């Protein structure tokens, strides 16, 4: 048997190579130990019922009927004066027999048939599966009742009925294993010479059917115990005088008014047993699941060095500023971990009608910055410092209700993937008109008319008709136009566009960029354009802020940034761009990888990858105006910004 035929995706394939003995956690143990004890007690009672019972479970004593618990009869007596404890102990034997018989039968019937029809396929498969569907569509208890009608009642016959009923689950399970493995094996074995696919298939099936089978068995045992109790309770399962928990409950129901306690012991026994089986099954399923999936390697997270420094000096105010962000800091707490900074010392501003590009690789914190401005970083994230001033109001000082009011009206956002940012359950028109009605108080009619206008404005033909379409009925470009129409519906002062063209077809990207430009000319809002693509940024932005490891490393007007980058990272990004019209794929110019949040160097965060690093770079660097230019628009976060000669874009 050659190695390549063992598919790495199948359960045991990986389990064999990567499974480490799962370390039992305390919470798991707290479940496993009591459950195992319960089942052990049950087994002991079942095996040694005669020896353990204080009385004969069938011995009647009408003098002692319906007594409560006492020293003589620990759990009291039933209507015929029989000792309840003894009947409970004997009942556990019935429970064990019932579970074993019905589950065993279900496996014996279901698995072979499932294997057969899965392997054979065709009509056999079709007819059997239709019959299974028919059986499954009837309430299970009714199926059991029908089979009992044929066979007659009594423990073994009733368990035979349950065995047939639950065999459908095993049948489906076995069939699906065959079908999956069949696909795997035939695809792979095409490449292997001399191996008989049938033999490999059989081997594979036996390897892969065990884990789901075990889980299904535990589920079935629990279900059988409940079903047996139910059938015996209504009198068509175990027959009196034989003691089963179900028949005991039947008695208890009849004498409920005289001795309510009778219902307690058998009921609790059922609950506890089924609970133990189910909980063990859960643990089993989890540990099998864990063996299959490779645990994602989570590297130890070192405590990030506290970032204590004064940060960048406040940027000088300009008259036409729409948005000013000063010293913004965002921390994110990963599950069960210390907060980690993802954005630090973030300062920029955008004038009315201006577009600032926020450019960086994924993980640089550019999207988080956009969301932070909206107050939408979500649970686990927190803004820990800074000011966000939109048209004179500090958004971070607003109460939640004030921020909610500002969103949509003053500040709006367009997301990356239009197909997921529109609600699939509503028509696109209703999603725009909803905003108009709620944010602007328009009437239903007026909102709808305005919606159609907006849809028309973003360049969608037949707007009245398209307004009634659901998102999945539109193309990506079309959906993004809708999302833009919704974001701009209330005429915001600031529009944040988070990679709005990245998910779109290349041919559509340019159209959407043109649309943004047109709309900005018309409405005069400030725009924060978040992108990883310098070429897109060059196309639409007036200025660009380059982000690296949660901070701005350089900001400059587009044309200056491309002609004369002052930060080594910017220069690296520029030289990695496809050159001119030839579209030659970029070379990996910057060695190494972007460090993830929590792993940032304490000094210049680019230092480990910087070809120009000097000893002074080990200290934190602020964003400062370069000395070569007097232009206040140019800021760089590099101590060698003025003395380096960097390659510009071509």
């Amino acid at each position, binding site marked *: 048997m050659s190695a390549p035929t063992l598919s790495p995706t199948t359960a045991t394939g990986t389990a064999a190579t990567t499974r480490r003995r799962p370390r039992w956690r305390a919470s798991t143990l707290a479940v496993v130990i009591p459950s195992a004890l319960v089942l052990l007690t049950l087994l002991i009672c079942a095996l040694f019922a005669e020896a353990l019972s204080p009385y004969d479970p069938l011995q009647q004593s009408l003098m002692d009927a319906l007594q409560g618990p006492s020293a003589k009869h620990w759990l009291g007596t039933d209507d015929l004066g029989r000792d309840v404890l003894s009947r409970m102990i004997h009942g556990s034997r019935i429970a064990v027999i019932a579970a074993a018989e019905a589950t065993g039968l279900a496996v014996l019937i279901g698995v072979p048939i499932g294997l057969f029809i899965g392997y054979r396929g065709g009509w056999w498969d079709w007819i059997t599966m*239709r019959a299974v*569907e*028919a*059986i499954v*569509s*009837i*309430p*299970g*208890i*009714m199926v059991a*009742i*029908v089979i009992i009608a*044929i066979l*007659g*009642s009594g423990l073994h016959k009733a368990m035979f009925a349950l065995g047939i009923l639950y065999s459908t689950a095993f049948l489906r399970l076995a069939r699906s294993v065959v079908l999956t493995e069949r696909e795997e094996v035939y695809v792979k074995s095409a490449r292997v010479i001399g191996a008989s696919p049938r033999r490999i298939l059989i081997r594979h099936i036996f390897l892969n059917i065990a884990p789901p089978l075990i889980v299904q068995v535990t589920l079935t045992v*629990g279900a059988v115990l*409940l079903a047996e*109790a*139910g059938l015996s*309770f*209504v*009198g*068509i399962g175990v027959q009196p005088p034989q003691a089963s928990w179900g028949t005991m*409950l039947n008695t208890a129901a009849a004498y*409920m*008014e005289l001795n*309510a306690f009778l*219902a307690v012991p058998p*009921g609790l026994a*059922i*609950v*506890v047993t*089924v*609970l133990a089986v189910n*909980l063990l099954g859960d643990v089993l399923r989890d540990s099998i699941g864990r063996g299959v999936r490779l645990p994602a390697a989570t590297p130890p997270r070192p405590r990030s060095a506290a970032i204590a420094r004064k940060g960048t000096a406040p940027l000088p105010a300009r008259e036409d500023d729409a948005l000013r962000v000063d010293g913004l800091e965002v921390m994110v707490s990963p599950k069960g971990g210390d907060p980690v900074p993802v954005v630090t010392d973030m300062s920029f501003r955008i004038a009315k009608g201006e577009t600032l590009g926020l450019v960086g690789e994924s993980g640089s914190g550019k999207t988080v910055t956009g*969301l932070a401005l*909206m107050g*939408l970083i*979500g649970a686990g994230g927190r803004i820990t410092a800074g000011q966000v001033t939109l048209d004179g109001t500090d958004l971070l000082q607003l109460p939640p209700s004030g921020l*909610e009011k500002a*969103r*949509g*009206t003053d500040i*709006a*956002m367009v*997301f990356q*993937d239009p197909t*997921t*940012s*529109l*609600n*699939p*359950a*509503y028509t696109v028109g209703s999603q725009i008109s909803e*905003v108009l009605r*709620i944010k602007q108080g328009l009437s239903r009619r007026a909102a709808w008319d305005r919606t159609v206008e907006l849809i028309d404005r973003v360049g969608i033909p037949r707007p009245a008709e398209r307004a009634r379409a*659901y998102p*999945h009925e539109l193309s990506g470009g079309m959906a993004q136009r809708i999302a833009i129409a*919704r*974001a701009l519906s209330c005429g915001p002062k600031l529009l944040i566009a988070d990679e709005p063209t990245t998910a779109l077809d290349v041919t559509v990207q340019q159209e959407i960029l043109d649309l943004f430009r047109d709309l900005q000319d018309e409405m005069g809002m400030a725009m924060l354009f978040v992108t990883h693509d310098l070429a897109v940024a060059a196309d639409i932005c007036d200025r660009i802020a380059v982000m690296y490891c949660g901070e701005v490393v350089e900001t400059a007007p587009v044309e200056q940034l491309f002609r004369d980058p002052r930060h080594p990272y910017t220069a690296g990004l520029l030289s990695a761009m496809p050159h001119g019209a030839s579209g030659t794929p970029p070379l990996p110019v910057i060695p190494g990888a972007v460090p993830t949040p929590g792993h940032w160097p304490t000094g210049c965060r680019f230092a480990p990858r910087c070809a120009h690093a000097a000893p002074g770079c080990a200290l934190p660097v602020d964003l400062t105006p370069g000395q070569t230019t007097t232009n206040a628009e140019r800021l760089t976060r590099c101590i060698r910004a003025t003395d380096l000669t960097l390659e510009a874009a071509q």
Partner: protein
Amino acid sequence: MIKLVGQRLLAMVPLLLIVSILTFSFTALLPSDPVDLIIGDRGSNEQHEQVRERLGLNDPFVTRYLDWLGRAVQGDLGTSFFNSVRVTDAVLLRMPATLSLTFASVLISVVVGLGAGVAAALRPRSWIDRLATFGATIGQAIPNFWFGLILASVFAVTLRWFPATGYVPLGENPLGWLLSITLPALALGLSTSAALARQVRSAMVGVLQQDYIRAARAQGLSSRRVIFRHALKNALVPVVTVLSFQITVLLGGALIVEQVYAINGIGSLAIAAVRQQDIPMIQGIVLILVLVVMGVQLATDIVYGLINPKARPA
């Protein structure tokens, strides 16, 4: 929507046929001779033959099946072996009690399950979240008829808030009806509601992470609106599928719980029929129950189509 309903109705025909073949063919499996059951061992051979002839038992299997099917389609499911009651009448007479109980328990399950599920999703690891998890685990292990017994002994026998037994038809006395099904419906509905709450919770948690939820917040819609208008409708999509299956389970559970409260529903009819090996009655019950289940599935399919535009045929 009409197209959707039409498609589903068409898909039911083969399933119904298969169920009818299955239920019918089990007469052939029966160990005892139905004629013996009807006239006892006393009858002469001649009488036996007459009865066989009358019941059509001498015809080939296929002929008998087609005969039975032909009459079943017209609503005639034959007469009981033991009293000359028409099966259709007997089943329809008992159906309201069972259906009342089933749908009351579905209602409880949905109301409690949705409420707790949404609350748990909004506040993970809160007490309500833990309660739902705990309830789902316990609910799976409690036999609902036992839960019914306990409820009866506390609220009916001891506190006397509700009647312990019996069913009052809705048409006769609406309040009495409500009182008579409250306890059994609670017994059935509560244990399933926890499982449903878990479903709602996980669906809701998944939906709340979706982009469109963030986008709706970005439009400045209130949390309440985002949760109940934008998230809930999407979260219900997978829940409806589960619910359809759970209604079938509850219907089965109702057959047993009926016995606790001495409700004369389909459950006692079926059990009596099993004891007497009353074949036409059992066939009729199964067939009508399958019809009910299919009706439920059709209804959930319609709801599914209403809340999930993608499921509607173009």
